[in-house]
């Protein structure tokens, strides 16, 4: 019975539905102490004295720690998520890079509001909170810089005095002769595009529990993490004990979206102090802390220039863009270079020059979040296409159609390196069909009619579309250990944990299909560094591709072992044995055979007869190393109505046409897309983190920062196309981030098109009523239609 490609219901649901999920804050440990964190209230200040005596004397307080009290334990350490890019990429773009460090607690100065300065450890979370308020910190405030362009200028306040400037990274990517392209252009269009700062906001905040292991001298750490193995590596350096003595477990995790792929100071402090006190210690993030101390997203400013022929054909593109990294560029070039790699997207662009300046400012560090530089790239590229269409007086969708790569051009070399340094060769998909299908699915005739017939006075109608490509399934490697138990159960152990991606279902589907066992007999073990010491994390739309193919490889190897062992026992040739529904039997004589569990018992060491040809037990460990990423693609299209009186935007219909290769489970894929679109709609309609000039976050709560509610959602249609990848045996491409990537671009294109019908212009998001009204006011267009109505 095939299970690959089938929308089977989820294996992981039951415990989560009855309240038996175990998220990190649910991990119960007797005698645990609780941590409260004292955070900086200033965006930039020298730290003077930190007075802790009053706090230390309060009820229940066991310890108060500062950078000074921790001494050398405090660091600075090399930042655990700052990895320089592949050497092959560095050899091409020769980036200027500044290595980042991490401190457990701020030492000489604070660089953003929310930075940890001290911690209180107490017997009860309420008492820890009480005492944290009694810690007094002397601050000498310093000039603050919140604007990345200003931060890049000489004379700006410096985040790191020893750097001499705030430039965390700089690189240029060139393709073709861009000067010549601009010289022969019929039209050159320039546009500034800003995708503002937002935050991924998983409903579960962060959290850490650390239990010292007296027997080994090590520590067990539970963390709400997408990257338990990177945290283990970071702790190895910070704690100075071998990594095998540090067990990091990501239990059930309540959403990640990138925010839990960092290694945070809190994740290093809690185990450090647990070992120092020899006590179990726990810390749970509050939402208020999460807003200022967990990483933010987006926040790029692009100055784009595009060279065009009169018919709209793109000849060349220049882009100089700022990435506002906040107070620490914690992931090096992940977002900055992802943006460059994805800027050309689904389009044919003969010549390009892309220059990136990644700059530090006195704001919360900004890093990867669902899409990681790709929504920014798409927003910039589609934004300049909108501006170009307007300048040429061409339909916005038609301009895209003329420049979109055709299926007969695949595979297509974009002429720049991907982040792994491998040439960016798009490996298939019918991009123009995606665009045409998306527009057709909108059924514009019916949607547009009321506006054409004057039935919606004071309301403007607009259509927008945006395409994307996404390099998915980045390596370097994943592995899987599969063991068939004498009970017949099959245990598959992998590294990266799930934060809602349905690993326990989709990974089991792959194993069941490849091995020939029943889905309900497969158990997935994940996110535990002791169970499998290697894992690259659940990030970058990679686990289905890389872990999935590792499971397929190990399943296929194990299948061969099973066939040989069964052939030996049944005294037939391996080619005469079949495996189906967890049973081996002789081809043509289905009654001659045995359940896999029985076979496992027969060849288990110490119990059965060891088959020297296959070794002890029915186990297999194998892995998958992708040659490079595989490119998923898609087009989102929407139709909107803008109310000129209130400035409100309603999305009438939203269509997704996407291609992520072979689908493991269509139900899960659609769920991932729908969730991504919803996060994208948040960026498009509501979400923007606003800082004042002093570096204070003005809307750091869920009362002030609006994420989409059930009542905010438009009708969304999802259409799958399946172009198998030829870069992995299963033919799959990643999908976790795709849904979010083109949404802000599609929505602003539609809203901008609607506003353009009355001469107004809007090119940024979120398209709040205030912003729409400002655009209408600027065009002096607001009163006319309203009066016309009256």
């Amino acid at each position: 019975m095939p299970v690959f490609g089938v929308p089977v219901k989820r294996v992981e649901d039951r415990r989560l539905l009855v309240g038996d999920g175990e998220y990190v804050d649910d991990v119960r440990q007797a005698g645990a102490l609780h941590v409260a964190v004292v955070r900086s209230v200033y965006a930039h200040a020298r730290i003077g004295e930190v007075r802790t005596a009053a706090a230390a004397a309060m009820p229940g307080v066991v310890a108060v720690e500062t950078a000074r009290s921790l001494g050398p334990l405090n660091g600075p350490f090399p930042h655990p998520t700052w990895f320089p890019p592949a050497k092959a990429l560095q050899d091409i773009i020769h980036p200027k890079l500044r290595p980042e460090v991490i401190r457990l607690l701020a030492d000489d100065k604070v660089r953003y509001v929310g930075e940890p300065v001290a911690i209180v450890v107490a017997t009860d979370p309420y008492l820890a909170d009480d005492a944290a308020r009694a810690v007094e910190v002397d601050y000498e405030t310093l000039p603050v810089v919140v604007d990345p362009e200003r931060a890049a200028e000489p004379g700006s306040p410096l985040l790191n005095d020893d750097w001499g400037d705030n430039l965390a990274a700089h690189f240029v990517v060139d393709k073709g002769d861009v000067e010549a392209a601009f010289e022969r252009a019929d039209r050159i269009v320039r546009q500034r595009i800003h995708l503002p700062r937002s935050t991924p906001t998983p409903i579960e905040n962060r959290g850490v529990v650390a239990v010292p292991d007296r027997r080994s001298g090590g520590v067990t750490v539970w963390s709400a993490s997408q990257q338990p193995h990177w945290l283990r590596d970071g702790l190895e350096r910070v704690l100075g004990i071998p990594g095998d003595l540090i067990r990091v477990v990501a239990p059930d995790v309540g959403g990640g979206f990138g925010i839990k792929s960092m290694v945070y100071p809190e994740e290093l402090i809690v185990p450090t102090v647990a070992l120092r006190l020899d006590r179990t210690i726990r810390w749970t993030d509050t939402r208020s802390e999460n807003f200022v101390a967990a990483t933010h997203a987006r926040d790029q400013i692009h100055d784009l220039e595009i060279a065009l022929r009169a018919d709209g054909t793109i000849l060349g593109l220049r882009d100089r863009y700022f990435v506002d990294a906040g107070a620490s560029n914690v992931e090096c070039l992940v977002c900055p270079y992802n943006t460059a790699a994805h800027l050309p997207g689904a389009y044919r662009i003969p010549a390009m020059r892309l220059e990136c300046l990644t700059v530090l400012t006195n704001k919360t560090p900004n890093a990867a979040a669902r899409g990681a530089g790709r929504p920014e790239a798409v927003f910039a590229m589609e934004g300049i296409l909108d501006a170009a269409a307007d300048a040429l007086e061409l339909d916005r969708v038609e301009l895209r159609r003329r420049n979109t790569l055709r299926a007969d051009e695949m595979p297509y070399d974009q002429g720049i390196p991907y982040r792994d340094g491998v040439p960016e060769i798009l490996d298939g998909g019918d991009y123009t069909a995606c665009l045409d299908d998306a527009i057709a699915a909108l059924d514009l005739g019916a949607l547009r009619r009321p506006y054409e017939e004057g039935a919606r006075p004071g309301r403007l109608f607009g259509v927008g579309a945006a395409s994307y490509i996404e390099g998915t399934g980045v390596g370097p490697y994943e592995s899987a250990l599969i063991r068939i138990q004498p009970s017949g159960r099959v245990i598959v152990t992998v590294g990266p944990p799930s934060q809602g991606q349905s690993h326990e279902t989709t990974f089991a589907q792959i194993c069941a299909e490849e091995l020939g066992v029943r889905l309900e007999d497969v158990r997935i073990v994940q996110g535990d560094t002791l169970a499998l010491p290697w894992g690259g994390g659940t990030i970058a739309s990679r686990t289905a591709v890389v872990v999935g193919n590792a499971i397929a490889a190990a399943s296929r190897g194990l299948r061969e072992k099973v066939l040989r062992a069964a052939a030996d026992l049944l005294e037939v040739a391996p080619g005469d044995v079949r495996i189906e529904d967890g049973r081996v039997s002789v081809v043509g004589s289905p009654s001659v055979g045995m359940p896999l569990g029985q076979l496992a018992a027969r060849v288990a060491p110490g119990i059965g007869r060891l088959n020297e040809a296959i070794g002890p037990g029915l186990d297999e460990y194998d892995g998958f190393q992708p040659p490079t990423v595989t490119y998923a693609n898609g087009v989102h299209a929407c139709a909107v109505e803008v109310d000129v009186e209130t400035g409100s935007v309603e999305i009438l219909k939203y269509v997704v046409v996407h291609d992520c290769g072979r689908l493991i489970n269509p139900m899960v894929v659609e769920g991932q897309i729908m969730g991504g679109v919803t996060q994208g709609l948040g960026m498009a309609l509501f979400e923007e983190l606003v800082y004042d000039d002093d570096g204070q976050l003005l809307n750091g709560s869920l009362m002030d920062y609006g994420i989409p509610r059930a009542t905010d959602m438009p009708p969304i249609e999802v259409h799958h196309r399946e172009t198998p990848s030829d870069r992995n045996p299963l033919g799959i491409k990643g999908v976790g981030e795709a849904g979010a990537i083109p949404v802000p671009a599609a929505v602003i294109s539609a809203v901008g098109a609607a506003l353009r019908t009355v001469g107004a212009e809007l090119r940024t998001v979120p398209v709040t009523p205030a912003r729409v009204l400002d655009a209408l006011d600027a065009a002096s267009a607001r009163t006319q239609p309203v009066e016309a109505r009256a």
Partner: protein
Amino acid sequence: MAEVTIRVEVNGRDHEAVVEPRLLLVHFLRDVLGLTGTHIGCDTTSCGTCTITLDGRAVKSCTMFAVQVDGRSIRTIEGLATDGRLHPLQEAFHEEHGLQCGFCTPGMIMAALPFVESNAEPNDDEIRTAISGNLCRCTGYANIVRSISRAASTMHGPSYAGPTASALEPSARD
């Protein structure tokens, strides 16, 4: 701070506890009674993941003190399935893929419970309004709306006489 004795019925069981007046109800449920199915996602009563029912009404348990529930009756997600049989809401969330990470799910289900008990045929807009105080960042809500609609049909259907048996085993034959 003077401690207070409270008596409260939770999921059909009577509990007596001595609590600080400032102890939030959600912390009482999680840390005193060990009912960790009720989650905490914010500190402004915005996300709804801590929703329980109090005397049959959906309430955000982070916005009440434990002392306020003295003498009252509470139901949490742990009290929904009976004798290993899932409640129709739980079953419907499974059938309609109404959850991904599962963190908002207990609150979402408890917010929906009084609503579906009193609405036989809710339309999608009514369902969306009913759960508009509960945030989900994974699903985009469409499957949650379908789940609640399905549960309402089941619970007000002719053959429903309490929680049903559920085969939660994944099946390739779906």
